[in-house]
């Protein structure tokens, strides 16, 4: 123990512990902790408690960005007026569309009733603000300012004005964390709007790219096809736009197509998101069973789990 003064070592039951012994203990404990944390949800409460403790520093780290945003708005009056005009026009446009939607929805409900279908078009919506994006450039997470006190729960889908953004993965009383669809660990069941073909869109880890790895060579898919949520898997409500296909490549000799799509949602812009859920989206038991959406997605794709 070259260079270690005696008083540097702490003692346990009167015996000196060397750093060598201690590092072995720490490594073993860390590995066990990681395995438990990765495999089960039993450490969630600890994580939530610690997350509340780290909230202040995260809020402070957000301040400079907030200030820039606020000051920019404060001083740029012309921009504000332009924004306001653009928004007014958009509201007009959307209201015009909404008038037709009401009658269409009523018609749709009637037809569904005729079909004795259980699915409902009623969806609950909650607006949340994006507090921060992941500080780690390789993980696509965002933090939201609504938590369990506002009724946020794990598995809620996030959408913006243009499409699906992701889903809630952790909830604390005052905030929540959501994974984006582009995270490399995320898969979302989609269907091709034009043909109804079902597949899985996986995140690529790049902020504007999704991959569709499970499409056979003869699949009917073209550049420009819109992918919408299929509603399978029970996490995402059906019918929301997810991405647009930007490239379809067939490598001779490969069994599957290489399909790349760009998310329609503005994942790295915007400050507000909508949390969307239907009242029968998830029951707590099913939620406890499918802890990890990717596993779920992969199982679905391999066909070795029963359809949910």
């Amino acid at each position: 123990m070259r260079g270690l003064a005696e008083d540097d070592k702490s003692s346990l039951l009167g015996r000196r512990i060397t750093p060598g012994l201690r590092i072995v203990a720490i490594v073993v404990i860390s590995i066990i902790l990681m395995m438990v944390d990765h495999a089960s949800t039993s450490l969630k409460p600890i994580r939530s408690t610690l997350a509340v403790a780290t909230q202040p520093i995260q809020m402070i780290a957000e301040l400079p960005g907030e200030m820039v945003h606020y000051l920019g708005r404060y001083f740029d009056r012309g921009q504000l007026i332009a924004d306001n005009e653009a928004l007014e026009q958009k509201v007009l446009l959307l209201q015009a569309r909404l008038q037709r939607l009401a009658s269409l929805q009523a018609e749709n409900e009637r037809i569904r009733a005729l079909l004795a279908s259980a699915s409902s078009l009623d969806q609950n919506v909650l607006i949340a603000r994006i507090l921060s994006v992941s500080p780690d450039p390789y993980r696509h997470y965002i933090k939201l300012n609504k938590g369990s006190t506002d009724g946020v729960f794990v598995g809620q889908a996030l959408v913006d004005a243009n499409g699906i953004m992701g889903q809630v993965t952790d909830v604390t009383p005052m905030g929540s964390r959501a994974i984006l669809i582009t995270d490399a660990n995320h898969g979302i069941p989609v269907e091709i709007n034009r043909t109804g073909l079902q597949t899985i869109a996986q995140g690529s880890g790049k902020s504007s790219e999704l991959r569709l790895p499970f499409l056979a060579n003869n699949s009917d898919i073209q550049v420009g096809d819109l992918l919408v949520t299929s509603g399978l898997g029970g996490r995402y409500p059906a019918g929301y736009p997810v991405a647009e296909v930007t490239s379809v490549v067939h490598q001779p000799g490969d069994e599957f197509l290489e399909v790349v799509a760009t998310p329609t949602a503005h994942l790295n812009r915007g400050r507000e998101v909508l949390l969307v859920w239907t009242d029968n989206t998830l029951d707590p038991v099913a939620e406890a069973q499918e802890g990890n959406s990717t596993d779920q997605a992969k199982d679905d794709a391999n066909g070795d789990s029963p359809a949910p």
Partner: protein
Amino acid sequence: MITERRVSGLLILSTLGGALFLAILPLPDALSAVRPALYPATVLFWVLVQPGRFGLLAAWTSGVLIDVIYGTPLGEHGLALAVAGYLVIRMRELLWSFPVWQQSVLLLPVFILYEFALFWIDGVTGAEVNQWWRWLPVATTVLVWPLWASLLERIAELEVG
């Protein structure tokens, strides 16, 4: 070096808080990829100069805090920081005998090991990021180490005199 005197726990905590602030400050993607790992650098600095006060267990706890913020498996950054801290403890007499800018060279393998541990655990848990620019922070951290270490040293000297 302020290795002989005890600095207060409050000072250590506040420098860690400052480094954490810089670590999670939102930056554009391009800048974020080269952001020096100041938080691990701060942890290793205290392990280096105040081993009696800030040891392996403290390094591990600081890492677990990062796991909570980043959402990585609990213990990932803890393990990486504890192992890096252990290396620093073993090398500390050597490190003490060099000025800070030469310490950078000695710390290069430590930061590489730190990043490698993260890379490895990411791979095992299925969150693999295998791109060369993942290793950029190692270079920037080593480059800013002399500045950062002398700054921390100056702050500590202000306190203990």
